[in-house]
């Protein structure tokens, strides 16, 4: 072996070489596995988006879960009837009020009694009871000597030795002697108050005479107490055997309800002249009402029947501004008589308990049944929902007080409340409404995605109306007629639009185009007529020119030739604005629209969006359609020419049919982009969630809504999850259209491959 061979052998098989080989193999394997793991995890991360959206949205549609925490004998025994339970925020301590005047505070688990008092009755007996405010645990007793005694339960929290201790107390905010109202005993009683006023309606036991009194609250700064000063009083005779007096939170609706299901509805805004608005049967003759109460907000009335139904009624205003009670919706799971309704303090949910011991949770706005179970063999007598809607106290006829833990975070959302018309409190008819927040506590959230989806599609469609003709025609020309040199700079310049930040387009649309369009409205409509006519006119004129001139601009350069013509036609249309206004629209089209044609006009409207967003969609549609037309095989075109077809005839007869799937996918892509565009609509659409196809009104889209509301919503609230649902809808929408476009395009590619 020569020395060279030896060295070669060493280099290839020596220990150093082996080591090196080993190292290289190792690094090859490392690269393979790390890239695979990295690649898979990045792809996974990309798909995480979809699953995360689902993960946030799903809890909206999960029913409530209930779990029994324990049962204790009813404190104080069931010889006396319970009037009300008050529960603290942590559902540790409850207070039971009985019709004998006892007030018993106790721990709901350990039964330890924390408070045991008898209210100062002064020899009288309790003849009636009403709740003034559930959330504040404020209530009123009507006594046999004609007095009304107003009290409230408070819970004070202290932390001795770092252990939370809740101490219940009873308080008499207007004195513990009560207000004498009538001579005899008070049979029925209704009390409402606001920050400055209180209204009390009482019915005596002897006749159907109602006494109504209103008080002004005057607070004394020295003693920090609130006094009631009599404002006015009146009496009202009815010929009606009322079982329930329902006084609405606005202190103007008084509804008398009998257990047979009859109701009389009075307007007592002026208590001296009460007005009977309506006599109505709430239930069919064979059915009887077993309980009646208000939902939170004291607007909706819930009537339970002996057939297991719960009906929701509330006053509805008609065209003449007259109010009448309407049945809004009903809830039913079983057929046993319902004995108790327990309403939630801070939202529009409620629970019912029936004679069979069955407990069911409902929500009014979404008309959802959220869960239920048979909690006892005995009939349910009373239900009290805990203040944070996370539990319930259920008293049964067998003397048990059962406490339940309930997990019910998102009852206000259901498929029907998201997508169908919902009859909201205070509305005169069922509507699609998006109104996610408001200043008041007892606000009913209105989460209808329909107006937002409508707005999204409206914006996208109007912009497609502008973008599709221009983009498709431009694509046809660029791909089919235009010569190579011109195409080389035209195509990138049109595609440059895609790169323009939409925030700039939105800014120009909102602050420059919208006012300009408002001032020159007829001019913009003139464009539709003037520009096409001008183009045809110019074309005809061109064909009449001598051959020498015509040949100087070949078909492939006509786009360049047209640029000054287009500028001139655009200028002409816009300068026609004022003459047209003078001739047809009494000098001002905008006023003419609202005054004479009765069309609402917003400055930031669908027309502005159509132009601005349409402009942004042009490159998307243009470049895909152009690619499709450009890649039609040349021999098809040449064959058609050879058979004597003109350029345009070849195009419509041969090229477009072949390229049509590509053009279709271009339009789908454009639509997908229009659906998701955010900044332009956010800045130039006015963002009012209305449902109107009117060209001159704005809209609110799903995407703009996300941009407006996402930042200020509380994490994991229903609103937060509904917004994520809106995002998911957008995601699915665009994903669907893009996939459709992609599949069509791939099919087309395969077809070209075979041609």
């Amino acid at each position, binding site marked *: 072996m020569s020395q060279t061979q030896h060295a070669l052998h060493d280099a290839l098989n020596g220990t150093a070489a082996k080591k090196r080989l080993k190292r*290289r193999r190792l690094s*090859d394997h490392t*690269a393979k596995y790390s*890239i*695979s793991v990295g*690649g898979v995890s*990045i*792809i996974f991360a*990309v*798909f*995480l*988006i979809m699953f995360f959206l689902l993960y*946030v949205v799903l809890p909206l549609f999960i029913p409530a879960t209930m779990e029994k925490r324990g049962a204790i004998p009813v404190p104080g025994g069931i010889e006396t009837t319970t009037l009300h339970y008050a529960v603290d925020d942590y559902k540790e301590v409850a207070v039971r009020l009985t019709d004998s005047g006892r007030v018993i505070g106790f721990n709901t688990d350990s039964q330890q009694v924390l408070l045991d008092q008898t209210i100062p009755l002064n020899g009288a007996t309790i003849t009636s009871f009403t709740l003034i405010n559930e959330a504040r645990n404020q209530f009123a007793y009507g006594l046999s000597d004609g007095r009304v005694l107003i009290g409230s339960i408070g819970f004070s929290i202290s932390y001795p030795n770092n252990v939370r201790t809740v101490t219940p107390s009873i308080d008499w905010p207007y004195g513990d002697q009560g207000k004498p109202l009538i001579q005899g005993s008070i049979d029925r009683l209704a009390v409402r108050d606001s920050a400055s006023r209180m209204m009390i309606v009482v019915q005596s036991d002897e006749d159907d005479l109602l006494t109504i009194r209103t008080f002004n609250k005057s607070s004394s700064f020295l003693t920090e107490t609130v006094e009631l000063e009599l404002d006015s009083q009146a009496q009202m005779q009815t010929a009606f055997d009322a079982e329930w007096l329902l006084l609405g939170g606005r202190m103007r609706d008084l509804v008398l309800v009998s257990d047979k299901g009859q109701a009389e509805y009075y307007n007592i805004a002026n208590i001296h002249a009460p007005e009977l608005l309506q006599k109505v049967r709430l239930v069919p003759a064979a059915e009887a009402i077993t309980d009646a109460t208000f939902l939170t907000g004291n607007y909706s009335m819930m009537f339970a029947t002996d057939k297991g139904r719960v009906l929701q009624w509330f006053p509805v205003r008609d065209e003449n501004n007259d109010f009448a009670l309407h049945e809004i919706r009903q809830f039913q799971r079983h057929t046993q008589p319902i004995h108790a309704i327990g309403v939630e303090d801070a939202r529009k949910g409620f629970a019912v308990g029936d004679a069979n011991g069955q407990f069911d949770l409902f929500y009014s706005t979404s008309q959802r049944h959220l869960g239920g179970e048979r909690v006892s063999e005995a009939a349910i007598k009373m239900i009290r929902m805990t203040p944070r809607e996370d539990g319930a106290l259920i008293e049964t006829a067998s003397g048990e007080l059962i406490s339940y833990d309930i997990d019910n975070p998102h009852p206000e959302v259901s498929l029907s409340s998201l997508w169908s018309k919902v009859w909201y409190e205070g509305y005169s008819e069922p509507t699609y409404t998006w109104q996610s927040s408001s200043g008041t506590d007892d606000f009913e959230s209105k989460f209808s995605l329909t107006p937002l989806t409508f707005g999204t599609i409206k914006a996208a469609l109007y912009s497609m109306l502008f973008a599709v003709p*221009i*983009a498709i*025609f*431009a694509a046809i*020309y660029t791909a089919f007629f235009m010569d190579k040199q011109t195409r080389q700079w035209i195509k*990138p*310049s*049109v595609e440059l*639009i895609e*790169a*323009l*930040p939409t*925030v*700039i387009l939105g800014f*120009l649309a909102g*602050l*420059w185009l919208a006012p300009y369009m408002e*001032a020159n409205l007829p001019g913009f409509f003139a464009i539709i007529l003037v*520009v096409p006519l001008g183009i045809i006119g*110019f*074309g005809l004129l061109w*064909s009449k020119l001598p051959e020498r001139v015509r040949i100087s601009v070949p*078909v492939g350069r*006509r*786009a360049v030739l*047209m*640029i000054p013509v*287009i500028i001139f036609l655009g200028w002409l249309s816009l300068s026609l604005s004022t003459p047209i206004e003078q001739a047809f629209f009494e000098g001002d089209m905008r006023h003419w629209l609202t005054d004479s044609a009765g069309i609402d006009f917003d400055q930031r409207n669908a027309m502005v969006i159509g132009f601005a967003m349409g402009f942004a969609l*042009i490159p998307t549609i243009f470049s895909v359609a152009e690619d499709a037309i450009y890649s039609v095989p040349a021999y098809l075109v040449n064959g058609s020419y050879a058979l004597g077809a*003109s350029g345009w*005839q070849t195009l*419509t007869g041969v090229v477009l049919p072949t390229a049509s799937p590509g053009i279709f996918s271009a339009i789908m892509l454009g639509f997908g*982009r229009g*659906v*998701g565009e955010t*900044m332009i609509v*956010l*800045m130039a659409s006015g963002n009012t969630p209305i449902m109107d196809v009117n060209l001159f009104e704005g809209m609110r889209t799903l995407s703009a809504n996300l*941009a407006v509301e*996402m930042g200020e919503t509380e994490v994991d609230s229903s609103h937060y999850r509904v917004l*994520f649902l809106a*995002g998911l809808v*957008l*995601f699915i929408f*665009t*994903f669907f259209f*893009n996939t459709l476009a992609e599949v069509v395009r791939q099919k087309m590619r395969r077809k070209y491959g075979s041609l």
Partner: protein
Amino acid sequence: MKTWFKKGEHWVWFSASAVSIAVVLVFGLLLLIAARGLNHFWPHPVYDFQLAQANGQVEQITGEIHNRRIKEVFDPANPSVEIKEPQLLIKTGNRDVYGLDFRWVSEKDIVDQAWTKSQGISIIERYEWGNMYGYIQALRQSGHPTLLGEAAQVGLAQAVAKSHRIRAEIRHIEKGVIGGINHELQQLRFEERKLQLAQQWDSANAERIEQRRLALQGQYGDLQASLDALYAKLKAEGEVVVRIAGDREVVIPVSHMVHFWQPNEMHLGQKVVFFFGSIKNFLLDDPREANTEGGVFPAIVGTLTMVILMTLFVLPMGVIAAIYMREYAKEGALLRLIRISINNLAGVPSIVFGIFGLGFFVYVLGHSIDQLFYDYALPNPTFGTPGLLWAALTMALLTLPVVIVSTEEGLSRIPRALREGGLALGATKAEVIIRIVLPMATPAIMTGLILAIARAAGEVAPLMLVGVVKLASELPVNLTAPFVHLDQKFMHLGFHIYDVGFQSPNVEAAQPLVYATSLLLVLVIVALNLGAIAIRNRLREKYKALDN
């Protein structure tokens, strides 16, 4: 003519016009932005207007003509008839005196419908209250006029320059030095809290931290004293007496002045110098008056930092995913599905990425990071709130499809022969990829990256949710460790446009600035895109050469 229609000639003309319309719209838009944006920097002449008033007196106002419009007003003689009245929007400045910067004036109210250039008028740009239009009368120091007339202007220029120097010093102390001390005090608070959480809080630690705190507070006191001295010096620069329209005299402290100029006395050369000077100020100054005046420097820095950070995330992610899909993964239905999905992800609305960023990065990841590592700062969130890191990550995810698709395309274009040649010479697969395939795919990767950057720089909607603010008190990059503050909120050019154009109380005054910002953003993005196109074209040439 019939055959002309029959041959479809009119359709050809229509389609040609569609291209022209698109081109006219693009360039019209760019011209509009450029004209209005640049106009913002040019010194405009100032005119005197004599306005006839209802009581027969003549009111004089002075200002720049900003805009014109035709306003429909009811004819006072015949209230049912509307007449069109040409009006001028005049920027009168002096907001502290008049309450408003702008005023619409009917041309018919102007005496003789003519106006003249004001002789020798100065525009004074101030740190507060916008511009002042008036004649510089005198320079005063501690209440006594020291210089009058022409001399006052020269003296004022020196005084303003000096006050700038003092301001720079003050700024250095306030932002740099005191900022550092505040940062250290904050760190001490955190240290205290950390020790308490770890149950190691004892008197020795307390003593140590208290001493350190006292020392810092001592330094702070010294700095405060030197600041007070500087402020006194600033005040000693005196004040300037300005006569404004209507023969009123106003006194402005020199320290409130940014600069002043006499637009009507400038010749073209001076105007050009002024023009570039204002562009420089626009690019390098801090914003003033709720972003409606001053420059956009923090927004530029914020945009750049976010984009660079995003690049750091998206480049490795995109390239690794593309290499995996092209070189390692098995071709098949699943891979096709993944490819379509990634393609489609590019079409998913950006705001969806925004809510994902907020929901996942900020609320899930950020909260967990706070719980684990920053529990001493709770309940104040560190990463559990929108910020730079999350914005960059969200944008990286948003632009990931662009980079993946572009890189894959680049990889697929590399001729098989090259790979096989490498393998035949005994290289491992990893070596082929790293030494041969990747270098050749670099232009494609660069194209994808540039397109991603262009997209990220212009995108606003997701950023509104994950970290952009109207006004950030500090830059996201500065000289305090760790230099790049991932948890900080930042300003952004695109959001600046949205915010100033739509949320500011004085939109009329802010509009020129918004056009200028738009122009800057468009220039950056168009340049990036042209760069990408150039690289793509060069790439194609290269492969053509390889194929031969």
